[in-house]
């Protein structure tokens, strides 16, 4: 294990920022810490770095307990959200800073920095000062500076938070390539689930300082451990229903719920892609009016209003939409292919119920 947390808790005064969190990161892994703002993910990263000390629990780096080691002794590379470049030093001296502290020989240092400049496409910018660089360049300098002294792990706090959307995509791909080339254990914090799903090997999901789930992108998407994860990863329709005669009912919608007690209030969750919509009113069982269509690219998001007043979100490809000749205001028929019964806010989900054989989710259907 490269990094391991055991029962780590961090309190700031009375506020519990991280609550009894345990997980581990394997050597060479690219791990995302994902969660909403204030979820405690940055605190976890800072605990690993030694920028914060745990109130309880242990942190291990490469099998060694590092609770008593200061930041300086932990041999980690940390990239701050706003890069935290040294303004009074140029690119070269920024990258050299950590090497000088480690008392590298001049020639070796020179070689290492040149190697990094080349790897990061920063050649020719050595003499520039941070304010003379673009956002993307600054970020690369920050990563190069963190990697220069060959840390055992690389920690990044919201690495794509401070750049605009256009460069963001580029940087994601670049980070994946970089990780592939260097194979250094990397942990990054993000609040953007799309980013986590696309970039990471595995994802740790936090909310309110509590670890919700650890898993590969596929696992957390397909088998969310609880409603929070299910709703946080990808969009979800959630309806309050009541069980009568083994069926959960809400408005005109009916979901078989054989295991539930009569009169029980349940919540029913289903992903937008599970809602199949047709312009042919005889095709599916339920009817609705197509209220709005949102163009997101290849995929469209549809908002349906049912006669009972319920609204649902559905997904459809652009081609399908055009072929069927759909437009806002039209009446449509639809069915719900898959759903889950959600018991409580944080309780585990029941198995997914299927109404008919389904096609696997389209990758990218995560918004």
């Amino acid at each position: 294990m490269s990094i391991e947390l055991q029962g780590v808790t961090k309190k700031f005064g009375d506020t519990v920022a991280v609550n009894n969190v345990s997980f581990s990161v394997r050597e060479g892994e690219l791990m995302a810490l994902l969660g909403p703002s204030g979820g405690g993910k940055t605190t976890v990263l800072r605990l690993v770095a030694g920028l914060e000390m745990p109130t309880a629990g242990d942190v291990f780096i490469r099998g060694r307990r590092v609770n008593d080691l200061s930041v300086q002794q932990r041999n980690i590379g940390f990239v701050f959200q706003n890069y935290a470049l040294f303004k009074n030093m140029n690119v070269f001296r920024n990258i050299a800073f950590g090497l000088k502290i480690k008392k590298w020989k001049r020639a070796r240092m020179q070689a290492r920095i040149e190697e990094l400049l080349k790897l990061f496409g920063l050649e020719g910018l050595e003499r520039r000062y941070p304010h003379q660089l673009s956002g993307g360049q600054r970020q690369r300098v920050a990563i190069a500076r963190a990697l220069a002294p060959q840390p055992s792990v690389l920690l990044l706090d919201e690495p794509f938070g401070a750049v605009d959307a256009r460069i963001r995509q580029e940087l994601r791909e670049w980070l994946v390539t970089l990780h592939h080339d260097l194979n250094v254990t990397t942990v990054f914090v993000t609040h953007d689930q799309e980013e986590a799903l696309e970039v990471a090997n595995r994802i740790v999901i936090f909310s309110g300082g509590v670890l919700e789930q650890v898993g590969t992108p596929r696992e957390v998407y397909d088998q969310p451990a609880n409603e929070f994860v299910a709703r946080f990863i990808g969009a979800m329709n959630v309806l309050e229903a009541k069980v009568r005669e083994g069926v959960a009912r809400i408005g005109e919608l009916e979901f078989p719920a054989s295991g539930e007690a009569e009169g029980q209030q349940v919540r029913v969750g289903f992903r937008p892609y599970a809602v199949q919509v047709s312009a042919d009113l005889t095709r599916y069982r339920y009817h609705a009016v197509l209220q709005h269509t949102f163009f997101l690219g290849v995929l469209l998001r549809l908002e349906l209003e049912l006669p009972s007043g319920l609204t649902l979100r559905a997904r459809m490809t652009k081609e399908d939409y055009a072929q069927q000749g759909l437009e806002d205001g039209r009446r449509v028929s639809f069915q719900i292919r898959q759903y889950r019964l959600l018991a409580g806010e944080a309780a585990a989900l029941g198995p997914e119920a299927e109404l008919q054989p389904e096609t696997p989710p389209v990758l990218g259907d995560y918004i």
Partner: protein
Amino acid sequence: MGFTLFYLGAIVLIPFAALVLRALELSWLDFWRLATTERALAAYRLTFGASLIAAAANGVFGTLLAWVLVRYHFPGRRSLDALIDFPFALPTAVAGLTLASLFAPDGWLGRYLVPLGIKGAFTPLGVVIALTFVGLPFVVRTLQPVLQNLEREVEEAAATLGAGRLRTFAQIIAPTLLPAVLTGLALAFARAVGEYGSIVFISGNLPFKTEIAPYLIVQRLEEYDYTGAIALAVVLLVFSFLLLGAINLLEQWSRHARRPA
């Protein structure tokens, strides 16, 4: 707008012009003679020397105070912060009066210091003490906002790269603070050079020994030696303007250094 200009003109420009015109009536030679008498030179030496030492002392203590006030939490911090402005709020005459009495041989501090050979009253040291007192808030107040806006992340970045606190301070924090410290220092220096009220009380005003340039101007006036006073005033004015220019440059540099990166 018109009022602003009229007011400025009446209050500032006309008196200023009057002084300059009178100064121009002097020939270069006369000016030089009047501005560089032995006594005047001694007064400049004391004024500038003591101001420089006081500014340096303020640089050290002001930086320390600003750091402590911004970074640490301890009982009495708020009161201490409020107290920093005391030299601004206290009339200089009162400052001079009380400092002179504090450092007099029978004063609260002088009682212990004078036997040690540290004479604060009626000596050049007294001048330095008064000027340090008067200039203290400048460095602290210039530095405080800069320290407050300093990104903690930058220091943390240095720590993750293995730098200890001293090294981080010397290589990362100090260079960032330097422009602001120098600005505060220059402001304190400018104030010290023109200071009069507090010095009159503490220095004893002995010609060639503890007489400062502004005091000499007053002396000349009291002797009805207007031209002598004007010559000295011009020297001080020119110096003030040079300092003002320097301060503006320093402030620009300081803003420049605080640019986000």
